[in-house]
């Protein structure tokens, strides 16, 4: 009697024969599945890009508190002290009215109109401010609510965090929308791939009606009869994953150079090459899962042993 390896080899060989015999159908099925996997791979890259953009923006976020003209330096220093005592705060910088004016003058040193306008002013119109950096960008809302509840809140004119938050939320919204639509498109294509694979396996089963009948009559076990179709489905996945990876690399290489102009500091091809093993494993797993599940449904429905 043959060993488990010999049985597996025979079942695998039978699955491979089915795959080869249905060459045209196999080609179509593998193509559709490869498209699904390409879209899925694109989605992974999109996810990476959006997370990088959001992380980049978040690192640039800070909170600046502008004080009213009547706020005394003591009051401002008291707020600074309170903030520094917060465990979530990394750094608080004080910018006095005079320093703000000097900074403004330096920044616009070449603009004669601004310099002339400033000279004509009797008072310093700029406000003193505190610039706050949090240890973690997720902590900004807490810091802002701490400021809102501070006893010196009446001397605070405005807190500019809300403007930054709107930008982040917009980027996150766009990225989330793209992810959702991408996921929807992947799911729709995956459903089509499942239907196509299901139909291919159904046709294989139909074409091999006589072989299946003979296998049953001579005492072939359920798995001896069914397993080659699962292998066939899995093979569609393996070939589709290979095609998807082979097509994806040059495509990403091409897109990466264009994207580098728009998104400096983000290397798509670098990300792909760094995570190539994970990427291939996920694509392969997704392909095999798609193929095997489709086959499983088809044999449950059409293959009575």
């Amino acid at each position, binding site marked *: 009697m*043959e060993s488990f390896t010999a049985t597996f080899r025979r079942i695998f060989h039978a699955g491979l024969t089915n795959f080869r015999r249905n060459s045209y159908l196999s080609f179509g099925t593998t193509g559709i599945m490869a498209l699904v996997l390409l879209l899925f791979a694109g989605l992974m890259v999109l996810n990476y890009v959006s997370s990088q953009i959001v992380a980049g923006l978040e690192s640039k976020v800070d909170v600046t508190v502008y004080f009213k003209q009547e706020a005394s330096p003591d009051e401002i220093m008291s707020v600074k002290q309170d903030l520094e005592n917060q465990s979530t705060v990394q750094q608080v910088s004080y910018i006095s009215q005079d320093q703000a004016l000097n900074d403004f003058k330096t920044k616009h040193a070449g603009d004669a109109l601004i310099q002339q306008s400033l000279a004509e002013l009797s008072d310093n119109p700029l406000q003193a401010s505190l610039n706050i950096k949090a240890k973690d960008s997720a902590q900004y809302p807490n810091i802002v609510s701490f400021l809102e509840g501070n006893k010196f809140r009446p001397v605070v004119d405005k807190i500019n965090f809300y403007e930054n938050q709107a930008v982040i939320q917009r980027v996150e919204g766009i990225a989330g929308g793209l992810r959702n639509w991408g996921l929807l498109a992947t799911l729709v294509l995956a459903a089509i791939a499942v239907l196509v694979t299901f139909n291919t396996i159904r046709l294989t089963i139909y074409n091999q009606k*006589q*072989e299946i009948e003979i*296998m049953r009559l*001579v*005492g*072939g076990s359920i798995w001896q009869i069914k397993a080659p179709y699962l292998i066939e489905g899995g093979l569609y996945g393996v070939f589709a994953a290979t095609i998807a990876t082979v097509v994806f690399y040059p495509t990403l290489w091409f897109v990466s150079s264009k994207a580098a102009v728009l998104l400096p500091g983000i290397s798509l091809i670098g990300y792909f090459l760094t995570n190539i093993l994970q990427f291939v494993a996920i694509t392969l797993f997704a392909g095999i899962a798609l193929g095997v599940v489709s086959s499983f449904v088809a044999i449950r429905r059409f293959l009575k042993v």
Partner: protein
Amino acid sequence: MIEFKDISTIYDDNFMALDGINLEIKDGEFVSLVGPSGAGKSTLMRLLTRELKPSHGEVFVDGINIADLSNRDTSFLRRKIGTIFQDFKLLAKMNASENVGYALEICGATPDEIAQDVPKLLSIVGLTDKAKNFPHQMSGGEKQRLALARALIHRPRIILADEPTGNLDMVNTYDVVKLLMKINEFGTTVILATHNREVVNAVGKRVISMEHGKIVRDQVEKGKYII
């Protein structure tokens, strides 16, 4: 030992194929089942391979009620049985040698065992020189002998032959019947369903006559074709 106990089989269209069959077949017997089309001969055979389950009653093979068998055990039951059909049921894409080897492969034989057993069996059925021929390159008689070789390759204890000579001329019919009798002489139980009067009379063993799903006559010894 095969035993049918109070078997009735009703198909989905309410056609009663078998009606209260009680029958015992001992190991090593040669039984000819005769009767007109629709008498229930093929249904009786399909119950034995468990392609069908009876609507009522029990079928025992070696004391085991085969209706209770799991799918896995059904496979083992079928390995005890070799089946031959009027339309041969050979695999068109395989040559003679592969057709026979395929059945052995399904039963889990190693390539070495297959390489050893297949030529022996092809020689027994007189097809050594046709080993590489495909079914479409063979005559009706050769195809049926090939089907017989396939049914025998896994050394079954029971042979079910459903109209095996229906498509054959006199000479080939005689060859196939002679082979079946030879197999029976080695101790294999043979159940032969046929319309062919000459075949049944030539075999001259137990003859069971069926009509409308019932056994109407059971000639245990030196039976003749009588309807």
